[in-house]
């Protein structure tokens, strides 16, 4: 056993940046769960589709990457609204099974359609933080800064700043706009929301739209770490995001982000650093997914409402 503490910060930084991405996807899950108490299993595939939209707009059509991202987020949002309107609204919201099955079906369909169009090879998608202008300081040509004697990649900083900005905008939308207020009202009490004149269907569509946009953002940010985009890119990310959402509390937006980050840390520090580096067991890296399931299991057993979720209290 070798306790390589000197490289531990590297892993923590990695965990923090992967975790931020899990948090972004967890946020997409929680936005829909909050309003409908429903897990949208198609979250990951919708995000993957969004990443492919960026691929088409940026790599194939040559649009500026960030503009492509904004367009793709907008298109995903539109698709989210369409799905809510056509596939979930016709069903009784109190009956979860049909809608959960529909999201599972969507998962398979989107995956198959993407596979048919773009096949299952990994396609390179530019890294949003891959190129920096010359005035950005670099160490020996590499794009990172030294923190605690460890390398902190610009990419990680970029991911954090992007997520922070996205969260700030989400906060503004939810807390400062009428549509945001309506969304929070529907999440809190659907019947009462109707009784103040809120069109609950449209409001849920609004939730689907934001969730899909966030999912796409997460997928684009994670693509460089996976070598690019491919139809199966989000399968494991979704599991990590689910673990993060469960950890944070399925109905807490802040909890989703923190939970996602914690799953990233657990993955990087306990499994990769602890297992692979300290114990020297290479095979430990394949236990990352198992660790995520373990997190879900532990949370469900000991604290089903997560760290920040509301505990369900039935008042008589």
């Amino acid at each position, binding site marked *: 056993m070798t306790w390589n503490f000197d490289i531990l910060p590297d892993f923590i930084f990695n965990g923090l940046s992967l975790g931020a991405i899990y948090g972004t996807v967890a946020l997409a899950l929680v936005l829909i769960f909050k309003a409908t108490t429903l897990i949208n299993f198609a979250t990951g595939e919708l995000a993957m589709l969004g990443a492919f939209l960026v691929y088409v707009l940026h790599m194939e059509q040559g649009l500026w990457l960030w503009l492509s991202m904004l367009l793709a987020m907008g298109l995903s949002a539109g698709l989210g609204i369409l799905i809510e309107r056509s596939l979930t609204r016709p069903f009784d919201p109190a009956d979860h099974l049909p809608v959960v099955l529909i999201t599972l079906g969507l998962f398979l369909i989107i995956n198959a359609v993407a596979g048919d169009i773009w096949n299952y090879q990994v396609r390179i998608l530019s890294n949003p933080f891959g190129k920096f202008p010359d005035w950005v300081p670099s160490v020996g040509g590499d794009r990172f800064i030294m923190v605690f004697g460890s390398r902190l990649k610009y990419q990680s900083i970029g991911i954090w700043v992007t997520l922070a900005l996205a969260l700030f905008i989400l906060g503004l939308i939810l807390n400062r706009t*009428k549509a945001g207020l309506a969304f929070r009202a529907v999440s809190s009490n659907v*019947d009462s929301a109707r009784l103040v004149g809120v069109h609950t269907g449209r409001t849920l569509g609004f939730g689907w739209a934001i969730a899909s946009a966030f999912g796409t953002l997460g997928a684009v940010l994670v693509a460089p770490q996976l070598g690019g985009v491919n139809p199966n890119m989000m399968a494991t990310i979704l599991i990590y995001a689910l673990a993060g959402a469960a950890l944070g509390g399925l109905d807490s937006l802040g909890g989703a982000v923190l939970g996602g980050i914690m799953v990233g840390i657990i993955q990087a520090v306990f499994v990769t650093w602890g297992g692979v580096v300290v114990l020297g067991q290479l095979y430990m890296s394949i236990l990352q997914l198992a660790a995520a399931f373990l997190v879900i299991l532990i949370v469900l057993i000991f604290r089903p409402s997560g760290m920040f979720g509301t505990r369900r209290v039935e008042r008589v």
Partner: protein
Amino acid sequence: MIDDVFDEVGLKVEDLHGSYGAVEVLRGLNFEVPPRNVSVILGANGAGKTTTLRAICNMCNTTGKVTLGDTDITRTSTAEIVRMGMAHVPQGRGTFPELSTLDNLMIGAYTRKDNEVRDDVDRWFEIFPVLSERSNQMAGSLSGGEQQMLAVARALMCRPRLLLLDEPSLGLAPLIIEDLFERFTTLNKETGLTMLIVEQNANLALDMADYGYVIESGEIALSGTADELKNDPAVQEAYLGA
């Protein structure tokens, strides 16, 4: 505008049937809620009082006819009915527990497009100073009485013509109930707001009401002015504890 017509005819309910799934709760109700008056629905537990209010707002399966002013609202969605000027304080108050007191009031004005919303909020804070103190507190942390005040204020934030109240006295201390009902009377007298109140506390309700209906097993068993009902031996025995 439905307003003018509503001021003349109020709300009319004809042969209203209401059900949840296969269970029929209302079996052909006929009654009217006259404008600018307070009407009260009395009845035992399970008689269908709450369902009556829910049926009027199209919150359960209904057949029959509900007319607001001169508009048939039987098939209108709940959200649209609210937009037409009907507010409903449901049983259990129906506040948004995770939203702040202020947000609860703001969402009450969701249907409004004018810019007097803040003024109305301030007015309610003046009427219920305790709500002002709790402005940033989550509604779920308010006491039962405070929540009921909030629920009523929220319902009135949409400036309704007709207010439906489902057992406003439920779970409140006697003094608070008295205070609340006094406020309802004032509201009706000062603004001419039409009210339809479902209430277990028949004494209190008939004292402030102009008209009353007694529902038994999903049907109107008795109806009349509040005074007529108060003097009816059957009502006295069953609901007034005489």
